[in-house]
């Protein structure tokens, strides 16, 4: 947080290198898996990813299969474990396909944000000087521009396609990561082993990619792991506002706002997405917390 905790980290990692018995990676894994919540969260996240990938095969019905003879079937109805909605669509199937939408968009957006952040963060941090000033002035402006406003404007401009939502979310989330990467690069580039590499005649791209980048991946991983639940929240949030992926593509946000209309006569419609969504957010947050502690990273930008 302040200078104080940084010296703490330096001290502790110094002692670690001096008395190193287990490898850094193993030490981090031990620290991560000792955190019960992070470990449970990680298992749940793996299950979620599996369910999302396998949704077309494990979902009992297509997400858009309408059945007017069987509307508002309560949970537990034969063939519809979680019931059906106002059009007779199977809630469980829609839930699984919404999970697929959420994860697909969140991972794609975070990947795009990471690539953008890497390019800008590395360039700004390594080159310094005027390039740095320009890039950081750019991120300053993005930082002051509420990312949700920008996302809404982008979706208005690009239309409600999957790609548009991915771009809208990515544009809103790269700034934090770019700042983080830049800070890390500035810290790393004066390290002795980087100096040594330079003295041996390594070119700038080699220095950045082989010497500096590997040291920056911890904070990047942590930032990305916090970015994913934020992106899931953005995807559903945009859908909730009527500005997310276009129907018939299912989304938790759409399910929630549709369920909200049936709040009093069929509360189960909103409960199913609400519970799975909340658990998903919690699992990813626990994993992020666990990674942050395992990597000794302060994640100040995240709020």
């Amino acid at each position, binding site marked *: *947080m*302040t200078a*104080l*905790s940084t010296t703490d980290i330096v001290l502790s990692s110094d002692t670690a290198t001096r008395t190193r018995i287990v490898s850094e990676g193993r030490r981090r894994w031990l620290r991560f898996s000792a955190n019960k*919540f992070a470990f449970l969260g990680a298992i749940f996240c793996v299950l979620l990813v599996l369910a999302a990938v396998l949704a077309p095969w494990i979902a009992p019905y297509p997400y858009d299969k309408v059945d007017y003879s069987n509307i508002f079937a309560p949970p537990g109805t034969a063939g519809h474990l979680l019931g059906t909605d106002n059009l007779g669509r199977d809630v469980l199937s829609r839930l699984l396909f919404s999970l697929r939408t959420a994860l697909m968009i969140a991972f794609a957006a975070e990947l795009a944000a990471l690539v953008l952040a890497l390019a800008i963060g590395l360039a700004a941090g390594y080159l310094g000087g005027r390039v740095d*000033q320009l890039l*950081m*002035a750019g991120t*300053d*402006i993005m930082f*002051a*521009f*509420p*990312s*949700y*406003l920008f996302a*809404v*404007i*982008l*979706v*208005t*401009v690009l239309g409600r396609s999957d790609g548009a939502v991915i771009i809208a979310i990515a544009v809103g989330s790269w700034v934090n990561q770019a700042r983080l990467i830049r800070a890390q690069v500035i810290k790393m580039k004066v390290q002795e082993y980087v100096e040594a590499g330079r003295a041996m005649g390594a070119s700038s791209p080699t220095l950045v990619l082989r010497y500096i980048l590997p040291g920056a991946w911890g904070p990047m991983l942590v930032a990305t792991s916090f970015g994913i*639940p934020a992106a899931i*929240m953005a995807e*559903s*949030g945009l859908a*909730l*506002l*009527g*500005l997310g992926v276009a129907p018939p593509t299912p989304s938790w946000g759409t399910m*929630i706002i549709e369920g*909200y209309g049936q*709040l*009093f006569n069929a*509360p189960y419609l*909103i*409960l199913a997405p*609400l519970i799975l*969504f*909340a658990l998903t*957010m*919690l699992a*990813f*947050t*626990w994993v992020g*917390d666990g990674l942050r502690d395992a990597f000794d990273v302060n994640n*100040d*930008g*995240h*709020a």
Partner: protein
Amino acid sequence: MALLTFLARRIARLVISLLIVSMLAFGLLQLAPGTFAGIQAVGGGSTGLANQQTSGNNSALVQAYGENVPIPVQYWNWLSHAVVGDFGPSYKYPQSDVTEIIAQALPVTASLAFFAMVLALAIAIPVGVISAVRRGTWIDNSLMFVSTLGVAIPNYLMAIILVLVFSVGLHALPTGGWTGPQSMIMPVIALGAGMAGVFARYVRSSVLEVLDEEYVVAARARGGTPRAVLLRHVLRSAIMPLVTVAGPAFAGLIAGTLFVEQIFGIPGLGQYFTQAAIGRDMPLMMGCTVVFAAILMAMNVIVDLVYAAIDPRTRAGLGLSHETKRKAAVA
């Protein structure tokens, strides 16, 4: 004097950022289907009142924002009105112009945001301090578990959970609307809960840091009661990091109003922004964007000032101290 220079520099940067944001938004919106002038015939023209207004205003609008007007000129036309507080007519709500809508909606959103902030601080500071002091006990564990819940659960889910409990379950509160103090309860809790979680985690970790500081140990050694040490020495330094997260937290709060106002049907700025986006009401979108961005940027300046006021060390970093010679400003 230094303060004035600092303020002037920050305000200049704020104005430039705001100009860039408005240019960015204006340029992007030009790429959207429809034009600033043309959409009115389609969007707002369906009602009788709008029709009358349309025929009256349209020629002026076409002159300013028509298809054959170059975009930089259109932007200039928009800007020259915007700086004097005239954001143009709204297409979606033809009865009033954008400035009137914002003047009505802003206090609504501001009061939600203010009370949410107060609520978050009122919860987070005691929770964070108690957690830190009782580090590792079941009290700490359960408080931090609940805080993580607050961090993880999006405000719109929180809003729906509150509706399920208080409206559907207990029939205690209305599900939405903006009729009086009781319609603020659930939106403020929904907005404040997440922030309380974030703040509580920060307070806890900064109290933990401070607790081991020598001056705290010294205060304790001099015979200060635990309560006095906590209140006089620990709390002051522990709350400071909150000021640094206040900026991002405020941005989150603004984003939150979009969702919470939508769910509770509150006529605030967030709601109008969303409706403008759905209805492609360009002037209203521009107006809301600029006002939101201006508030956020002003908040960031205030945060820096407050930070300088409570921590003399950062004054140097901000260029407020006399001995620092600043490099050329980025802007």
